[in-house]
């Protein structure tokens, strides 16, 4: 599904990622762990198409060169980024935003757009599953939401858009243990044979609830070790500093 070969990324002539390689197959859950400044967020930004980076190397998504696609085209093809810091958008109603987003993606894929009633039915169901306060959907997008609500809102969007590849950028940060469990359950319910996940995190805590197939350790812009879920526990015990 996703093949990254020899990815290099600079910002303001500072090297962030270097010789980065990763392959994710359909149905797999990969976790990337790394200390602050190791390049985790840069990776998620580059995959979802944020401008401002100088990149080289190759990133293929379902055998398409990702660098040739605009941000919204990547979303249409099924890439979703759950933001580390979801933005507050004043004046934009959450429900209207969700509907606009879903229908933009459906339209791009030649599917019928949902009308207001069909959409509300869908969103109600998804919100209920995530224990997301429905009343919040009628408010301005993320405005006045708590940190946990913003993160839940990201997962709600993910479950409505049903992407092929979901990138979770430190979704666990700022969540209390109950919210963490709900979010993890939400992610797990989306796991299917053809859906993949890339989970970016500092801690192995989230991985107690979402079992990854592979764990990678990212340091100084490249993966220095890959393994199974046990690698996360090893990291937790040793800490990043003593890991090498």
């Amino acid at each position, binding site marked *: 599904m996703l093949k990254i070969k020899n990815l290099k990324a600079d910002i303001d002539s500072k090297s962030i990622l270097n010789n980065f390689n990763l392959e994710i197959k359909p149905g797999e859950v990969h976790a990337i762990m790394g200390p602050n400044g190791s390049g985790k967020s840069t990776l998620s930004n580059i995959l*979802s*198409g*944020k*401008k401002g980076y100088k990149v080289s190397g190759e990133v293929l998504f379902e055998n398409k060169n990702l660098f040739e696609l*605009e*941000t*919204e085209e*990547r*979303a*249409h093809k099924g890439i*979703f*980024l759950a*933001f580390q810091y*979801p*933005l507050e*958008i*004043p*004046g*934009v*109603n959450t429900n*209207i*935003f969700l509907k*606009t*987003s*879903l229908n*933009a*993606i459906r339209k*791009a894929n030649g599917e019928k757009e949902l009308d207001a009633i069909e959409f509300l039915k869908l969103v109600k169901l998804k919100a209920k599953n995530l224990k997301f306060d429905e009343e919040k959907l009628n408010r*301005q997008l993320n405005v006045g939401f708590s940190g946990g609500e913003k993160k839940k809102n990201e997962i709600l*969007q993910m479950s409505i*858009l049903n992407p092929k590849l979901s990138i979770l950028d430190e979704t666990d940060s700022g969540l209390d243990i109950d919210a963490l469990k709900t979010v993890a359950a939400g992610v797990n319910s989306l796991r299917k044979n053809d859906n993949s996940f890339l989970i970016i995190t500092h801690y192995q805590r989230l991985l107690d609830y979402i079992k990854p197939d592979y764990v990678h350790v990212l340091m100084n812009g490249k993966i220095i070790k890959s393994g199974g879920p046990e690698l996360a526990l090893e990291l937790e015990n040793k800490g990043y500093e003593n890991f090498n």
Partner: protein
Amino acid sequence: MEEQLKIDFEKLLEKSNFSKKNIEIKRKNFNNFIEKGFPNKREENWKFSDLNQIISKNIKNLSFYNDLSKPNKIDQSTFIAGLEHNKLIFVNGRIEKIEFDYEEKNNIEILDDLVLEKPNNANNSLLFLNNAFVSKFFKLIVKKNYSLKKPLVIYNITNKDLVSKSVNLKFDILLEENSSLKLIEFSNDKSTTNFININYNFDVQKNSILKNYKIDNNSNSNIKYYFNNISQDTNSVSEIFLLSSGSEFIKNEINCNLNGKYASAFVNGVFLLNGSKHHEIKTNINHLVENTKSYQLIKSVLEDESKAVYQGKIFVDSKAQKTDGYQLSKAILLNENTEFNAKPELEIYADDVKCSHGSSSGSLNEDSIFYLMSRGLNYKEAKKLLINGFLLDVVEKITDSEIKNLIKNIMSLKQ
């Protein structure tokens, strides 16, 4: 221009049937205008909008005499659909229709044979011009305890027959005690390069409510000046909303005197400009007695090389304790060649007051755009959604829900 002015003024006096008293006042005003001329940037009030220069740049051979003897055809397609309303229709500056179908006739009155008064703002040369050249001067009286059942729409329609003319209109509106009026001023211009000068005087008496919505949304090359003078008595409310968008140049000046306790004034507005358009809102809110309130919110979205100016002044008299005054302006500049000028002024002589002001301008937040695009919206859609949200906030301040929806439709705002 002076020669032309003199010829046109004499022609107006000769062709019209003004009373002796009015001719005398008109001559005074005319001489005052000749002496002062069009305002220019050396005057503080006009430093961001040099009208003299704007007129000479945009209008070739401006003429001041406007033949109003023949009726004009009313283009009914310009009427607001889906809203039951009373109508006052001006075409090319001539009154063509007065229709109050929804109202009790004994509770409203329209006068058009009035004696001009000396302009109350002695420094405003455009009021001199207006008084000198206005042909009929109207007054609408809403009687005590009467609320108009439907909004009144004043249509200011111009068609392609009107070219390079100076059009002057003057309108007084008196809301007697405990009355109310919803007034929509709706411009529709198919004319080119005219100078349109409109003077409104609102007298809002005790417990009365004035809601005034000024809509200028059709692109045209006219230059416009509105002077709105509002005088408010005890416990009265004025709510003004401006959609300033269509004409090449507009300056909307609002002078509001809060003369009675518990009077409140709300001025909300939107500048939506593109091309080389240049619009200004200048307010003077004068808190003259205790316990009065004012609130102003102006939002701008500027494209191409357009320019917007907001000069908002809150004056608090030494008697006006417990004043609550607020003003805020926000602008989104979509292009580096656009310009937004804000000049907030607070002049306060009382010590127990609550007054604040703020202003911000900048481009659209790129991170917000990225967020929306990562959810499948293209750049254009993301931008539109953000602007929609930015503007909705001020349109939501409109308290009449029917008119609010009308204005949302006119602005193509969603939700």
